[in-house]
């Protein structure tokens, strides 16, 4: 009986603690955030109050305080994404308001108006070239790692793919400029140094590891029982891969390709470094040896001397990028969830 009451007390105590720390801590941290948004100089005071509350809570009700703190950290991810969205929209609002649809219909970027069409076209072309490389080669690489490679080769190649993803984009860009762009310039007798083709090739190599590692996860998640069934029927390894593994993991593999597209769209430094800064549409449109600017390289190369409306246009370019990549990200997650459900149901 006595243990019962004491446990009840403890629960009540913890509950009380959670309420106290949660409410006071929540109010103070919210106040700190609001202060940072409106009057950054005043942020320190609510923040100190928050620290004091948490310190008191930690000593008195550690369990509840820890839980509350972890809840806050979880909220922070959503909060950051929200802040990014809000601030991009706020700063791009003048551009959308003043230029409106002109940003997506004209073709001129400069004195005549700020059209984002050349940049969108440049991003589209480079992404297309990149995915022609990263898509098939990445899927083949994932198949190799997941199904074909002997153990020791896999142990070596998997970290290698990670390292390939880790090489900084500016190093890729530098190599693309000094080696690849130079090569194309010399061998193809191009009028201008730098081309969409060079950017596409470099970005393709950069998107490759993303495709490989995500697709590999999808392929290895195909249950062994399915493959064993096929093998037991006398199919060869390759027949099993072709008719069982790949179709089953199809949605996961497409999610990998979608994520790869996201990486390629958002790649900045390679395009900034390699492209000659010509903000016009290439002529003819499909001239992959020509130049234009991508959405990312527009921001990176112009932010320094932009102000007013032009700055706002750069933020609008950021909004276009952000929306595109978000759509791709959510799309790939949707596809992955579907695959999980499908495999879970079959198992």
């Amino acid at each position, binding site marked *: 009986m006595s243990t019962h009451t004491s446990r009840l007390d403890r629960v009540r105590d913890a509950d009380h603690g959670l309420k106290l720390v949660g409410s006071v801590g929540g109010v103070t941290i919210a106040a700190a955030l609001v202060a940072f948004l409106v009057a950054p100089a005043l942020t320190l005071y609510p923040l100190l109050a928050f620290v004091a509350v948490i310190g008191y809570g930690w000593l008195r009700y550690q369990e509840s305080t820890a839980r509350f703190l972890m809840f806050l*950290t979880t909220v922070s991810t959503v909060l950051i994404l929200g802040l990014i969205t809000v601030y991009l929209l706020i700063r791009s609002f003048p551009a959308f308001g003043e230029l409106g649809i002109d940003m997506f219909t004209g073709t001129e970027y400069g004195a005549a108006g700020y059209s984002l069409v050349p940049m969108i076209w440049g991003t589209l072309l480079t992404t297309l070239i990149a995915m022609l490389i990263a898509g098939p080669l990445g899927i083949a690489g994932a198949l190799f790692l997941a199904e074909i490679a002997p153990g020791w080769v896999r142990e070596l190649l998997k970290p290698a793919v990670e390292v390939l993803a880790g*090489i900084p984009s500016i190093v890729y860009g530098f190599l693309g400029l000094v080696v690849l762009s130079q090569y194309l310039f010399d061998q193809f007798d191009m009028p201008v140094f730098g081309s969409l083709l060079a950017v596409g090739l470099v970005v393709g190599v950069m998107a490759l590891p993303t495709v490989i590692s995500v697709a590999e996860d999808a392929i290895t998640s195909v249950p062994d029982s399915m493959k064993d069934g096929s093998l037991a029927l006398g199919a060869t390894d390759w027949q099993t891969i072709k008719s069982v593994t790949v179709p089953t993991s199809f949605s996961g593999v497409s999610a990998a390709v979608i994520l790869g597209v996201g990486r390629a769209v958002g790649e*900045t430094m390679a395009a900034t470094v390699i492209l000659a800064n010509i903000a016009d549409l290439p002529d003819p449109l499909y001239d992959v040896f020509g130049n234009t600017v991508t959405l990312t390289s527009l921001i990176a190369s112009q932010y320094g001397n932009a102000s007013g409306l032009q700055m706002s246009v750069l933020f609008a370019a950021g909004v276009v990028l952000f929306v595109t990549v978000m759509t791709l990200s959510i799309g790939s997650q949707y596809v992955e969830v579907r695959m999980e459900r499908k495999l879970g149901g079959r198992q």
Partner: protein
Amino acid sequence: MSTDTRALVATESSTLELAGGGLVALSLLLVVGGLVGLFGVVPVGATVAGVPFATLLGAGLLVLGAGVLGIGAASRTGLVATDPSRSAGLLAGGVFALFGLVVGGLVGAFALGLATAWPVTALLVGVGAGAATVLPREDLGSTLVPGSVAVVSGLTMLSGLVGPGWSWPIGDLSATLYAEVAIPLLAAVAGLLAAWTAAKAYGGFGSRGRQLGAYLLIGANAAWMAALLVGLVAFVLMKGFAPMTRGIRYGLFVQPWTWFYFPPIEEYVVISGPVIWFYWPFVMEGVALTNDINGVLPAIVGTFWLVLGAVTFAVPLGVGAAVFLTEYAEQGRFTGLVEVSTNGLWSTPSIVYGLFGLAFLVPRLGNTTSILAGQLVLGFMLLPLVVITSREALKSVPDAYRDASAALGVSKWETIKSVVLPAALPGVITGIILGVGRIAGETAPILLVMVSDPFPSAAARVVQGSFHFTGSFPFVAAPTIDLVQSSSALPYQLYAVISAGLDQNMAFAWGTALVLLLVVLSFYAVGIASRVYFRRKLNQ
């Protein structure tokens, strides 16, 4: 999966294997030859063993094509025993049809000069190639197209139709194709197609042959990637090593270690000893007119502070969120929202983070580009990586640990603190290290929020002053930490060199690239090695 069919097909198949193996070897040789020519190691105009390289490639292609066609015909007429399927299959048919489409279009548009009718030839050749592959029996179908491609391209090279001096402006694109590129490119592509088919023939066609063919291509792809990585790193190392290590001097000197005044003898006592003196200008200097050798010290210091700040910001947040998500939260709308935002943050382009920092942080943090803004922005970028990897690590802690702890009456928080987190720690740390490797190389965000001087002469002085005693209250002076000042960082330094013009600064650029690569790759090496170590330990 090794039902070896070789034994069943018996002895005469060794002729087939010999021929097929020879053709695979020849085609791979041509691919390598093509790549060698493409990269200009051996220019097309050069002579190898007394024969022009182009002629050599052409002859090789001709032999290869004839061999591939011959092996198909021999199999069809029953000269060699094979096990072909009824058709080469839609995969091969599709690949060859696509190839035919491209070749037909190019030939129609440029060789025949059809301005508007080129899609017709493209379609004709494409459909023809596809049909020639899919309709006949597999042995004929899979050899016909690659064999004739090799023969035709070999003939064009041997006849000099595409020889040295040949050039062709690619349609209305702003580029011209020269023989120096066209010949080796043709050799490599035709060689690759033929290698696929020859591997199929080596396996006697059928399911075993197809497996060999597919594995050859997929294996070649993997080998290409490994070669790419090794090549990239080796190339930067080769180019950057000399500029990076230029002017290193070191030596062993006898120098005073310490000295003090000793009253009894009324003299200074000096204790001397050997001191290793080491001077490495590239990483110990900034950029200044008075320097013999300019260096990247300010950038290294900047990167150090960046990484430190980003980790301090993102790791507690990320690990906390991961613990909450795996241990406390019920699957529901909230976790779904957090998951979507984490994945969204992961794929948000780095330049968008930069814009966000420019709009949100810079005006609030002294209205200037600053290290603090850079740290926070990179922390935002690191956060999703930490959340994702920490969640994986926490999920992989067996539930038995939690249950055992709970059964002992330990509260949830105590369980997390003393059981779950320690068990997940290796995975969490590995994830953090790999994440740091990633953000240490980011250029785009800091370009907008942190840097101002492209070639700083001195490192940012973040910690100013030191602990010392003073005469006035409170008698101790602490160092001040000033994070609101701009600084360079390694990836930005490389960008700055490139945009300043590479002509005079090539060596400096290569050196910077190498230092950056070494810094990033060492994070990766440590991360991967620790993962391997902990995994081994866990499996013991």
